[in-house]
């Protein structure tokens, strides 16, 4: 919970990771290139006082995660969204056992989502059924640019991907977090294109599709499909840190998202440990659309409360204390958040 100016906000950080990118876990040069790319994102967009050392950035560990999110970071509940990256790291990038053990120790604070790769075929489908049972999965994280043998990406509307989504629907894994990356087969097409999200959102109406970093670098394509598909949501990872370096640009992004998809389908996330939640939450609560962007309406406190936690809490059935729900003057909004 974060309190400011007499208002209190329930915080759900909808995208966090516990990763290990230390040299002993790097399988090849790409393991180093990948974490270096993350570290440049971190250094480029964080306020100077929030920049970690490279050593710290390679591996943060469970204790530091708990402190950064819950002791220092105002977060009430956080959701793990692991990326496997088995072609880059010996034991994977996201640390499944460590993250799941933390979740079991703090079930009120943490939810563990797992990942799958449709190129694992029948065997992967069996594994998905076991994982769903073992982890009690409500959601999954899919990174479409994952490398896999001689394939360096897939589309959500590939035939095998459909098999996995069908299984997810059957297993009650309802919240599919989609993260687009730079590679896909064939390379003829734009890997960041979200047309495949459009297709699966139409065909799997029981599932929610949360597009991470709100479709960036294709914000416009994302906004357009999200307008047409009620089960498509925006995750604010990567977009939110611009609030510090480029507040006007962040104002345009949030203004566009509110215009096209509305306040009920946008979720806060720090993308920890890319960035830490405390400064992002403080900056967002204090943020207002700059005057020069007169085409957008000002952000309301209710919108901020929904984005910072109530929307994701509703999606994941996370209980919200009565005093942190929206007040009764907006009864339809209370219904959404409860």
């Amino acid at each position, binding site marked *: 919970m974060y309190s400011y100016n007499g208002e209190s906000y329930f915080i759900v950080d909808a995208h966090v990771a516990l990763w290990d990118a230390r040299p002993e876990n790097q399988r090849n040069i790409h393991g180093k290139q990948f974490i270096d790319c993350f570290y440049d994102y971190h*250094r480029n967009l964080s306020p100077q006082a929030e920049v970690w050392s490279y050593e710290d950035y390679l591996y943060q560990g469970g204790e530091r995660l708990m402190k950064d999110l819950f002791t220092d970071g105002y977060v009430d509940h956080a959701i793990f969204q692991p990326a496997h990256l088995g072609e880059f790291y010996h034991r994977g990038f996201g640390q499944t056992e460590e993250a799941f053990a933390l979740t079991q120790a703090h079930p009120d604070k943490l939810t563990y989502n797992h990942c799958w790769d449709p190129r694992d075929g029948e065997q992967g489908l069996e594994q998905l059924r076991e994982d769903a049972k073992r982890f009690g999965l409500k959601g999954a994280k899919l990174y479409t640019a994952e490398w896999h043998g*001689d394939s360096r990406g897939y589309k959500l509307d590939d035939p095998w991907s459909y098999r996995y989504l069908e299984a997810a629907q059957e297993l009650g894994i309802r919240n599919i977090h989609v993260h687009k990356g730079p590679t896909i087969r064939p390379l*003829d097409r734009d890997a960041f294109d979200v047309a495949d999200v459009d297709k699966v959102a139409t065909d799997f109406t029981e599932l929610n599709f949360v597009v991470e970093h709100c479709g*960036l670098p294709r914000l416009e394509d994302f*906004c357009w499909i999200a307008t047409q598909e009620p089960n498509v949501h925006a995750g604010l990872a990567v977009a939110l840190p611009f609030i510090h370096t480029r507040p006007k640009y962040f104002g*345009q992004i949030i203004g*566009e998202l509110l215009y096209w998809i509305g306040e009920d389908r946008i979720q806060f996330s720090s993308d920890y440990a890319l960035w830490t939640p405390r400064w992002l939450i403080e900056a967002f609560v204090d943020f207002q659309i700059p005057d020069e962007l007169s085409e957008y309406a000002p952000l309301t406190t209710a919108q901020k409360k929904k984005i910072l936690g109530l929307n994701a809490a509703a999606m994941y059935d996370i209980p919200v204390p009565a005093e942190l729900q929206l007040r009764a003057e907006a009864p339809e909004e209370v219904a959404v958040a409860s």
Partner: protein
Amino acid sequence: MMTTRMTTPTTTTSRHDQAFRALDAVVDPELDEPITDLGFVRSVEVDDDRVEVHLRLPTSFCAPNFAYLMASDSKDVLTALPWTGHVVVELDDHHDSDLINAGLAADAGYRGTFVHEADDSLDVLRVTFQRKAHTAAMERVLTRLLLADPERSEIDLHGVTIGDLPADDATAALLRRRAVIGLGEGADLPVLVDHTGVAHPRDEVPLRLRMARSTRISIEGNAHFCRGLLRTRYPDTSVPAT
């Protein structure tokens, strides 16, 4: 960090400049800006008829298809210079550097470079982004008209033709992007059009303007981010923030 290895000072200096200026024609398709302005040209070396150019990008994980497009376009414009004999273009510090550089050295083309990952060509990809660049340029001139004349409503943009536009930088930029996708510059041609030049119906004008705005914001935002990341990755760069 432009370096010139000189043989005869006057000609090679000007050849170095010619090579660099030729690269102005190579555009990052996603950002709609020349790679020379973006700081992606790391070095240009000229030795008589031999030219060697190194390119760099904001991250190792920039999309390989766009990286290849920029590198192969660079090789093409340098090869087209009348005095070049041997042209080497290399992409540095990218996850596909080895693959792309080998493909460029062998003039293997897109399919020869990416083999099983390539179906046909990158033509459709390029056209998609040329259309986006046109959409963004269109939004800039029309929003500028709205700001200049508060009496004009969005729906009034329906009848605006190229002849109604002021003779400024935004109009010039729009005309260049129209030419790229095969649209003319006649004074009576409508401005708010789809990629085939057909005007949107009057009642769709506010929606089409909003869609165009989100395209413009997306491209501009990506350009901010890429420039910032390039400066973080290569602190020596002198590329300005915007």
